[in-house]
């Protein structure tokens, strides 16, 4: 299967990505690296462990890579997930940072 066929199979017109990345062989090279890219695994494990800040970061990176390679269905899904995470995810890291800061300041006060 060549890359023209591949892009058609996921519903994407391939002209734009080939023009942007300057050759078919470039596009093919990056595509072949994509399955081994760790971003998706990071996203899944962050979601499993409810590490929302990490999940947001990974979803954003995945969106970036998908946009670069014009894997548009994946880019759309990453964008949708990112939106959901940003809107609804409990921001536990921020509260723990603020909490720690305040406790430290109080300890300074007692010295």
């Amino acid at each position: 299967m060549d890359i023209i066929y591949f892009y058609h199979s996921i519903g994407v017109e391939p002209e734009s990505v080939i023009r942007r990345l300057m050759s078919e062989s470039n596009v093919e090279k990056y595509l072949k690296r994509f399955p081994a890219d760790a971003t998706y695994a990071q996203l899944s494990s962050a979601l499993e462990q409810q590490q929302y800040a990490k999940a947001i970061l990974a979803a954003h990176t995945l969106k970036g890579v998908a946009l670069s390679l014009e894997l548009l269905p994946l880019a759309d899904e990453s964008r949708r997930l990112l939106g959901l995470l940003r809107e609804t995810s409990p921001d536990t890291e921020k509260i723990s940072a603020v909490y720690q800061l305040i406790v430290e300041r109080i300890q300074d006060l007692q010295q």
Partner: protein
Amino acid sequence: MTSQKGQRMNREKHNRQKILIAADSDINRSILSDMLGDEFDILEAENGIQAITLLQRFPEEIVLAFLDIIMPEMDGFQVLTIMNERHWIEEIPVIMISAETVPNFVERAYELGATEYISRPFDGRIVRRRAINTIMLYSKQKKLVELVADQIYEKERNNSLLIEILSNIVEFRNGESGLHVLHIQTITEQLFNRLVQMTDQYHLTAEETALIVTASALHDIGKIAIPEEILNKPGKLTPKEYEIIKTHSTQGASLLSSLPFRQKEPLVKIANDICRWHHERYDGTGYPDGLVKDEIPISAQIVALADVYDALSSERVYKKAYSHEKTVEMILRGECGCFNPLLLQCLTDIAADLPERLKIGALSKRNPFRLRTATEKILRHGDLSVSDGTLRLMKHEKTKYQFFASLSHEMRFELTAMPEVLSLSPWCAHQLGLDEVILNPFSNEKILEIIDEEVIRTMRRLLAVTTPENPMVELDCLLNFKGKCRWCKVAVRSMWSEDMPPQNTGLIGKIIDIREE
């Protein structure tokens, strides 16, 4: 391939300009790298901290930085902020890349000094063109800055050279060595530096202070009009001869005010004040006008004190040299007339280091450091960055330092203030199992495992009372080396800016294992 050819190719590769690409996805980094890699060496960073490390390591070689906005550890905006704090942004243009197209992201990037903002997905040819244009624009600007800096430098060097020649002629006739003028300049500078730390009542800018130091060399030019027999008379002067000598202050001032033009030049005005009034005394007992207290311009008050110090501590035809201690004691006791109490306090404060500084001042005279800092200041005020040409010497020193640091097994570190970034020498990082660059080190868990918070607090207390004159602090403490606790001596020196008054800019230090001491 012959080894000679191989070496040449290595050198060519080594000399190529570098582009930094910071993005968290390696596919995205490769895409950019392939677009640019033919003509440039590419340095890749997968997060902001790595980007800062590389910027720190190759400040002169990196000609352009691509920064992704969203990255782990430290994001692109934080990297830009640090680049601003450290003035790197003046030398290294930044192109931001992001899959975010939210207007306030774009705006913020430009506000922080990014040259371009590129959204994903981007076109390879366009990115390449933008990168090359940006590099060319910056290098043209750098060349212009260099030209301007060299011209200012040349002009100031000539000015200063003429003043030195002139004052040396006077001194030669006066039978004194050229050292007197150098000493007056050094003492004047030291007194001023201390004075602006103590008070701002005289509203002195760094430029004025520099001019006063230059003009102080001219304080005795009036002696050119005094007959040589009187000037160099070994014995005691008759009252009449003394009256003639005393006219050198008014003669000097009238020499300057009879210049046919340039009366409005600040240097001429300041030199005039100094010539006329450097024999006035704070209580009104001086000459020629018997001015009292701050009726005497502060420039003349300071040069008067510097003149008396150097006259007492040097040998003259009519007297032997007094020791430094004796000189200070005589001045403080009022044996040479009455001086502004604030200036006497300044003299007391700088006294300990003064003899050493006078030695260094005389030696470094051939090294035009003061000129270079003045040039640098002018360029900063003009919102231009400092040119390569005028800072060659500093770069040379820096390269030398980095070379020796890389060879030595010394545990050195540097902490910059705002933002707090700790940089460790490779050996230090290796020994402690830390990264070479750490942002906000005092909230970093790994650091807190190595050094007790109580020790950090003690160190901060000690550092809080350091000054540019007394910047050193030493502390013995236990440090955790990858699980093994060892007693170490930590020697730290606080660092200060060239501003008036100086601002604390961070610190440098060294860790010494006490067993190896």
